[in-house]
């Protein structure tokens, strides 16, 4: 047992780190978003281009696609190293991690020529249009419909929770093309130009006060049949490929952890409180459990094995853990804990800010409950939930 890289891994890590040092500054809190949204987007595009030119853009993609032709382990190492620097990566994560791989898997040669290189070079940004107001966890129950009209499809409906829709050039869009078959069988995937007529992006005002996501409305949007990904009715299979491409998360937990609350408690003089100390121990053990479980996954990757759905435990642990830590920190501050003004609140109001973000984290990308279902069904082999719509057509159920 050891935590060391193999010689090959160490060599790649050094190479990655040298490249990053040459182009970026080491991570400093708050530095990344200091210039406002537009500026951030420009820097993200520039960094993506630099990465692509240096051969670090898509580690696992084949060379002919503009990738590095490397291993999943190298991708993990790259992620670990990149996280040590102020790298503006966010806007490209969904596109390059999920959307463009779907285009590569199902698109025509034309599509690949037209889209892959531009995405890789940071010139075009992609978003993913799956969720709807009435189709979250049950995304296959979506209602946005596409009707064939000559060589085109006419799209009407609404998507929701679309990250980055307001600055995206293209999206992959999952719609219903046949309501007269069971829900999974009547879906089709398309490439959609986000700047075209009839596509209306409206920011969602979140409970936390921020506006990171969007609603996207489609009114008589026309898409040529040639921009279809996969056969009509095959959309669900295509979507599963998209979701499988979700990268192995390599970041830490988003927001304050046991260390931050311990530092705060020390400064506040509450570190000697026995009840707090017991909770602190639990938080540490959970954070370590998550971190070390990732090391076990990495070990499997390092041997060329494929990790299973066991990784679903990460988000369950982290999101609940974050909510609990922030809640405790606020209560520790008593009445003063209400204050969100960064100049007044302890620790630059990081606990208050994450307190309002945590509920979303327990929902986004699979709710706690859905993740537990995934563990129960795919890891433990328990029966699926009752699905009363299973053998009924979509039209019968709606």
């Amino acid at each position: 047992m050891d935590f060391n890289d193999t010689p090959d891994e160490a060599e790649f890590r050094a190479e990655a780190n040298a490249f990053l040092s040459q182009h970026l500054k080491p991570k400093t809190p708050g530095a990344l978003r200091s210039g406002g949204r537009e500026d951030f987007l420009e820097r993200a595009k520039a960094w993506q281009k630099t990465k692509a030119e240096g051969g670090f853009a898509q580690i696992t993609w084949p060379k002919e696609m503009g990738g590095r032709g490397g291993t999943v382990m190298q991708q993990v190492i790259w992620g670990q190293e990149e996280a040590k620097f102020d790298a503006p990566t966010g806007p490209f994560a969904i596109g390059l991690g999920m959307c463009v791989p779907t285009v590569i898997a199902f698109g025509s040669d034309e599509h690949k020529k037209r889209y892959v290189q531009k995405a890789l070079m940071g010139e075009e940004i992609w978003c993913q249009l799956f969720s709807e107001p009435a189709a979250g966890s049950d995304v296959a129950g979506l209602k946005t419909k596409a009707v064939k009209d000559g060589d085109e499809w006419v799209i009407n409906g609404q998507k929701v929770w679309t990250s980055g829709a307001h600055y995206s050039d293209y999206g992959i869009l999952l719609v219903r093309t046949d309501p007269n078959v069971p829900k999974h069988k009547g879906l089709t995937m398309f490439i959609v130009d986000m700047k075209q007529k009839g596509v209306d992006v409206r920011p969602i005002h979140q409970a936390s006060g921020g506006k990171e996501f969007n609603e996207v409305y489609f009114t008589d949007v026309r898409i040529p049949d040639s921009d279809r990904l996969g056969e009509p009715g095959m959309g669900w299979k295509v979507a599963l490929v998209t979701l499988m491409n979700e990268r192995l998360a390599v970041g830490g937990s988003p927001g304050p952890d046991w260390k931050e609350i311990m530092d705060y408690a020390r400064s506040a003089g509450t570190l000697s409180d026995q009840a707090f100390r017991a909770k602190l121990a639990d938080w540490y053990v959970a954070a370590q459990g998550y971190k070390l479980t990732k090391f076990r996954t990495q070990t499997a990757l390092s041997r060329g094995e494929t990790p299973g759905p066991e990784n679903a435990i990460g988000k369950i642990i982290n999101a609940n853990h974050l909510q609990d830590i922030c809640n405790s920190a606020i209560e520790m501050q008593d009445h003063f804990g209400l204050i969100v003004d960064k100049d007044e609140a302890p620790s630059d109001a990081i606990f208050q800010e994450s307190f309002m973000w945590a509920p979303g984290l327990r929902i986004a990308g699979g709710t706690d409950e859905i993740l537990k279902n995934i563990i129960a069904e795919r890891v433990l082999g328990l029966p699926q939930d009752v699905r009363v719509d299973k053998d009924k057509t979509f039209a019968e159920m709606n």
Partner: protein
Amino acid sequence: MNFDFSDDQKFLRDEARKFLEAQCTSAHVRAVLDDDSKSHNEDVWKQIVEMGWLGAAIPEEYGGLGLGMLELCVIAEELGRVLAPVPFGSSAYFFAEALKIAGSDEQKARMLPNVADGSLIGCIAVSEGPGEIKAGALATRLKDGVISGKKIPVTDGDIATHAVVLVKDGSGESLVIADLSQSGVTREPVKTLEPTRSHATISFDGAAAELLGEAGNGMALLDQINDRAAVLLAFEQLGGASRCLEMANEYAKERVAFGRAIGGNQAIKHKLADMYVKNEVARSNAYYGAWALSSDAAELPEAAAAARVAASEAYWFASKENIQTHGGMGFTWEVDCHLFYRRAKLLAVQAGSPAVWKEKLVSALEAKND
């Protein structure tokens, strides 16, 4: 990154599992449970001794197999899975490790070979009453080379031939080793909620004892012994917790209510998923403890504490919710659920309760992040 056991260690695990599933069945555990006169299962013990497992982490020069701590961790997990009703932990995790870290060359040469071949069964005698043992409150005394006082409960105290005993003397607290067969020692079985592992009250009345390590260094040495034993106990706990999840999972798939397997209901699915998450957290923390133990890392105190806290929580949760998943059947003597529930509690409070370990963990973090 190689955060896993080696192929050889996995081979040992598979062999140990095969052997124990055949030779240490529920019937072997229940033979001890249902017979008050039995302190352990002698057949199982004999076979385990013959396998040489007691000496897995004892160097060859002292008659052991000289494998290492990782191999002992592997064995511990397997023993935990089958609820082995034997004094293995007392002898191999506590007594042998105490000798290894604090014994003189002469003591090691005299006793370790006998631990390895099973002719000496060791135990550790610390507790004297309810609550965490506090240095100032110790009543057992060492004076002129003999000890007097009462230790209760001592796990495996009625089977053991020797005990490491925490005592008070002129220089503070010290550890001593006492031969339990001498006339100054009386032993009475004490009933506990875990009858498959025996416990005793041991009274010392001017019993001869030899110092283990420096006089006055008892509490610090006990901490070191407990850190090492904690990792091994965590593996036993992990084995038990894994088995509870397997049992609950098997039952949930076969038990039918309202026309379908109860495992199809979200309340059960999510309960089992919660068990799974806690068990994975415990496994990862236990592996880290194993790494720290086997590499003599400076991180051992917090790694051991985290392993212990995570494993105690996982086993507690898995053992109680395993009963719950089995419904009324889970509350019958004949179904094994309660055996795990009992063992989980023993392993959680032996060598310090979860609260004690949480405090140790936070103290270590505090010192480190000052």
